């Protein structure tokens, strides 16, 4: 190899290392990918990417496998950070642990490319007329990795454990999967011996009963199912520290692969489960290897890595290099998460964050015209093209394109238009005074913008926003970035000088309902935005009985998106794409919107 070539390669490698240094942190930010729900991080599905021109020519990969599937072989899959080693699904928190759990555990229902629920451990289900009861009919020949049969009792055990009075203090965070069930309040308080809302009718029929008609019933019952015969004797309060949470042989699921051994922080060996109910997997084993981002490309090229999954994927800057490799194919998909710039609509005392009566409006950002002007003034297309090498999308409302709640035409689109921004500001009375504009009353006007570290692109976006806004005469005081935990601590508090802040959400694929973080009374309503119409539209979209009609919900979400874009409580900035890479000899992966691991028994390696 010529000297100059390797020097360039090394320089490239080292520059990607500099990125990696930040990339490592990527996973740490609250709004980033580290801690996802079961399906919190999601990607645009294949078909969708075709439509919006994002495909890289590899879109046929999962539809037309090259020839007949072959059995045998081991693949190495890469992730950038080590799991936390909490392999009891009830207590896991990170996407890295989920990489392993997704291959070893299964749920009653899963989601297809369009995020519609499809059968998994349950082959069928039905609702009662009031939508308060959901009955699942389970597959009958499913066995756990130790050969024991899977039954309805395991389902009851799983949900009862989540509702256990000790569940949260032991470290569990998934109460949203049980809290809608009938009798949850009594059970979690210790006043009841059984959880009324989940009941085994017979070995292969299980019935969920909800307190109120539950339009999210399928999503709420889609959690991983764990084995009662393994965990049943362990008090829930001790489960997270019990050996069954980290000992390879004791992690027993129903999935196609079985964690057989691992070296902490380095590699995790999953062998195929020959008696898997959907047929023995083609592959002998899948090895998850923790790799550093800086040398990931080299490993892909050397066939040392067959698959690179989220969180992270191939950094957009390296995508061209990886795509050029003959033995590697890449696939780009939108992420369900997105980044936004929020206005802090209300301030108030710290100790009553959610008591709206104590909120004091932040006068600086109450003017909707100002918010619209700001939306026009920020060059969001520039972020996607310049900072993400095109691997991303400008967001106009908060639903990701993969969601059925998305409608391209619903929201108003604020294109980058400096003239329009100036025009709006002129009309609204923000007069020029020297380099900057004053507020409509003629006083000095400065907006304070805060942003966190931990996401490299977002860190670079902040100063550009400042520059963009200064171009139209809005003075922005850009505070120096804080570590994620410090930033969100401040965001949560109301009593700050903060006028605008940057943040992001990674969203669960289960249901598009945004009320958990936009409703004025929601704890995650960080902008502290309070608008009756806004709240009402969100609530209508989830209120029975109308909401059981998906067309009705779609309509409501269109209305909500439109109202959102009129009022602009936050300015959605962009959603970054995930770029997967896989060896050209690895076939059979279904790249779904939210998940690429749930058909792993169909993966096969061309030998």
């Amino acid at each position, binding site marked *: 190899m010529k000297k100059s070539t390797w020097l360039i390669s090394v320089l490239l490698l080292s520059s990607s290392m500099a990125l990696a240094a930040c990339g490592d942190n990527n996973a740490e930010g609250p709004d980033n990918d580290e801690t996802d729900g079961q399906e919190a991080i999601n990607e645009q599905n294949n078909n969708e990417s075709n439509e919006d021109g994002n495909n890289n020519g590899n879109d046929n990969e999962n539809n037309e496998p090259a020839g007949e599937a072959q059995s045998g072989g081991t693949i190495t899959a890469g992730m950038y950070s080590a799991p936390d080693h909490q392999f009891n699904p009830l207590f896991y928190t990170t996407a890295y642990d989920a990489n392993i759990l997704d291959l070893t555990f299964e749920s009653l229902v899963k989601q297809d490319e369009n995020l519609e629920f499809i059968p998994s451990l349950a082959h069928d289900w039905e609702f009662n007329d009031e939508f308060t009861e959901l009955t699942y009919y389970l597959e009958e020949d499913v066995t756990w990795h130790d050969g024991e049969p899977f039954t309805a009792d395991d389902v009851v055990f799983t949900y009862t454990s989540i509702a256990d009075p000790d569940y949260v203090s032991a470290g569990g965070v998934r109460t949203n999967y049980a809290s809608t069930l009938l009798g949850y309040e009594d059970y979690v308080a210790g006043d009841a011996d059984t959880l009324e809302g989940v009941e085994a009718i017979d070995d292969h029929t299980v019935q969920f009963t909800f307190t109120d008609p539950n339009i999210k019933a399928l999503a709420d019952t889609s959690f991983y199912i764990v084995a009662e015969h393994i965990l049943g004797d362990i008090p829930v309060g001790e489960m997270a520290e*019990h050996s069954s949470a980290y000992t390879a042989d004791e992690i027993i699921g129903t999935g196609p692969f079985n964690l057989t051994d691992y070296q902490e922080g380095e590699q995790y060996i999953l062998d195929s489960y020959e008696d898997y109910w959907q047929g023995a997997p083609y592959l002998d084993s899948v090895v998850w290897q*923790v790799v550093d981002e800086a040398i990931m490309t080299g490993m892909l090229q050397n066939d040392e890595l067959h698959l690179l999954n989220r969180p992270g994927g191939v950094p957009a800057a390296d995508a061209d290099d990886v795509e050029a490799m003959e033995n590697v194919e890449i696939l780009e998909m939108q992420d369900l998460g997105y980044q936004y710039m929020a206005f802090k609509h209300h301030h108030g005392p710290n100790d009553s964050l959610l008591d709206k009566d104590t909120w004091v409006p932040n006068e600086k950002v109450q003017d909707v015209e100002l918010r619209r002007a700001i939306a026009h003034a920020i060059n969001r297309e520039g972020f996607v093209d310049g900072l993400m090498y095109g691997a991303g999308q400008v967001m106009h409302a908060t639903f990701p394109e993969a969601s059925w709640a998305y409608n391209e035409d619903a929201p108003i689109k604020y294109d980058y238009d400096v003239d329009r921004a100036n025009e709006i500001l002129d009309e609204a009375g923000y007069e020029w005074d020297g380099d900057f504009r004053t507020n409509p009353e003629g006083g000095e006007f400065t907006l304070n913008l805060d942003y966190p570290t931990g996401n490299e692109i977002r860190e670079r976006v902040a100063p550009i926003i400042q520059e963009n806004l200064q171009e139209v005469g809005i003075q922005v005081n850009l505070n120096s970035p804080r570590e994620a*935990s410090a930033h969100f601590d401040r965001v949560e508090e109301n009593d700050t000088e903060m006028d605008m802040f940057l943040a992001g959400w990674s969203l669960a694929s289960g249901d598009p309902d945004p009320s958990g973080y936009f409703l004025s009374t929601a704890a995650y309503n960080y902008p502290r935005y309070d608008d009756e119409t806004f709240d009402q539209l969100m609530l209508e979209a989830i209120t029975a009985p109308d909401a059981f009609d998906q067309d009705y919900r779609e309509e409501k979400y269109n209305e909500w998106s439109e109202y959102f874009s009129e009022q602009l409580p936050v300015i959605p900035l962009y959603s970054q794409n995930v770029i997967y890479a896989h060896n050209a000899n690895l076939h059979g992966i279904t790249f779904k919107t939210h998940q690429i691991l749930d058909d792993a028994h169909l993966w096969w390696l061309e030998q």
Partner: protein
Amino acid sequence: MYKYITRRVLQFIPMLFLVTIVVYGLAQAAPGDPLSGEILDPDIPAEVLEERREALGLNDPIPVQYWNWLSSVAVGDFGQSMHYTGRSVADLVTSRIMNTLYLSLFALGVTILVAIPIGIYSSKKPYSLLDYSATTFAFLGLATPNFFAALIAIYFFSFQLGWFPSQGTVSSVGLTGFEYFIDKIRHLILPGFTLGLASTAIYMRYLRTEMLEVMGSDFIRTARAKGLGPSSVLYKHTLRNALIPIITLLGFEFGTLLSGAVITEAVFNYPGLGTLFLNSIQNRDYPVIMAINLILAVTILVGNLLADIFYAIVDPRIRYD
């Protein structure tokens, strides 16, 4: 001597106590807590996080939290990690500490084995070709950022030549005996040399300067005059006297043996204490921060004590009573 050591060890106790108070105070003073970084997905109810805060005792006043921590550490219980659900601090630290120790000792070995011979040679023949090239090489090592050196090493020795593995501490789980040992060593070579060579420059230059200075002193002239052979003069008289500053440096180095090397660990994906420490700070995982801190404080104190004891061994004029 024993009295001296006992006195020094007893002095550790108030010092460690002060260190823990300061570190605990500083860690708690930083904004955020172990759960504020977990605002993850809006599906996790905010009340759950609040309930977990209560369960972890994060809502208690800081002195109370400190006291709870101190009283359990006093009986040897480092508690549970607040970030890694269900994992004890002891478990987390022990899973990393041996890796870090291997890596640091290997790197220290590389440093000493390279630096001392070259240092001696350079002082024996100052301004020779080897002296100049060693100096050049040493400063190159000092000036190269660790991650850059690591990437060059991986590129050549792992990707191009395929001699050494680039990631982790073992190549496959389940190796035993001699095979396991060899595999471990192979995984140590790239990160170990990357770390070790970087600090050779300091030792090499120190030793060279010190040796040259000692060589010019009267007692060396006397030693030569009374007819001692050149190697006896060099090793018995010069080197021994020149080692004092090296021992001071090594005393400090010993203290950092367990602190890990964040960047090297990251590039080679070598799971050590360094990355754990960094992550625990980012996650505000107080029990882990405190445990690692305590370990570091103890090793630094012990390292300095050892250095003091070695002074007396190397230089008989130094005595402790």
